[in-house]
């Protein structure tokens, strides 16, 4: 497993003082671009969770998933897939609460509350 796509081994990523060189701005941008393309494909195919529905995702978005995983390290791939689900749930929850609130306000108004 390569740390980054253009480096096959660990030697290139190890700093001379024993640290590990992090992705720079360019490789981050490349990774994010790969992620966005992959997620767009998931959206198109109505797939939410890239981990649970890994098989389906790989089938429908074979090219995108390959590029995404090549551009980002494994931990990032996992992180972004999880984040997508988490954000989706978060947005759903916010939406639900807003709807409930709106319904409650409507109900109270119909009962004559806050008519003034």
């Amino acid at each position, binding site marked *: 497993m390569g740390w980054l796509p253009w480096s096959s081994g660990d030697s290139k990523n190890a*700093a001379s*003082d024993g*640290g*590990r060189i*992090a992705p*720079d701005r360019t490789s981050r941008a490349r990774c*994010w671009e790969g992620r966005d393309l992959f997620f767009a494909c998931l959206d198109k195919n109505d797939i939410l969770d890239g981990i649970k529905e890994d098989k389906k995702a790989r089938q429908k978005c074979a090219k995108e998933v390959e590029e995404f995983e090549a551009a980002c*390290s494994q*931990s990032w791939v996992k992180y*972004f897939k999880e984040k997508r689900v988490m954000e989706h749930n978060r947005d759903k929850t916010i939406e639900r609460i807003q709807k409930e609130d709106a319904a409650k306000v409507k109900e109270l108004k119909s009962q004559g509350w806050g008519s003034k």
Partner: protein
Amino acid sequence: MPSPMRMAGLLSRATRNMTIEAAPASSTRIVPFLRNNASQCRAYTQQRPRCQQSMRSMIPAQNDFSTSAFRAKGPTMGQMRQRHTTGPFSWKAALLFVLTGAGMMVYFRVEKARLERKRMAEMSKGVGRPKVGGPFVLKDLDGKEFTEEDLKGKYSFVYFGFTHCPDICPDELDKMAEIIEKVKASTKDEKLFMPVFITCDPVRDTPEVLREYLKEFHPGIVGLTGTYEQVKNVCKQYRVYFSTPKDVKPGEDYLVDHSIYFYLMDPDNDFVECIGRQDTPESASKVILEHINDWKREGKPLKTV
């Protein structure tokens, strides 16, 4: 000083009289009619006994010593009446009143905001306060020892992160760079603001790695790293959630959870304010500059080298 309500009442009365008096001057034909009307009007509406008194005593005096008709002396009378009925309240007085009022309001607002900030800043001083920040030993990118003493004398802006951070840290560091530039521009580059990046992932983030990483964001950011124990300690001092795995194999790929706040610390190295994800570079630099200016205004010491 009379109450504002009363002042406002008098002013409105003054302006009403002014409009009435303004008309006769422009047209001589309707002067008598208007003047009569105006004086009647005033006689009925006039509420202040002092002015009524003076008007009464003035009118007979005019008639006694004047050979011409009462109305012929109109303009002078009108002016005198106006002076008497409006008293010292002219448009100049009104303008002065409004300007003073507006000035006071602005001043009180500013002062109130300043005191509020001061109260917040001093909340973390003294005994028995929740403490953010404290003694630590780390090393900077040249391998030199760096402790909390090195932060004193300047406003420091501390961020915890790690170089292999997927998306939040890079965003926040770009924001940090913008904030640095804004503060630098407003303080005329006095070097009293020190942005600091402390890694939560010392195994991978050695000085060399950090230097390369931070260079991409802003050359002014001071990068700090240390041993696992040292970093754990500094995270504890700053109440930062620390979850770095202890024994990671070389080459292992992992992420680190960490808090994503900037900590603004004053020159005594006491915590002042948190800057979070919701802040824009504009709002953050505004907050920082307000604190820096408060500190300067109070004449407290600052290191500018």
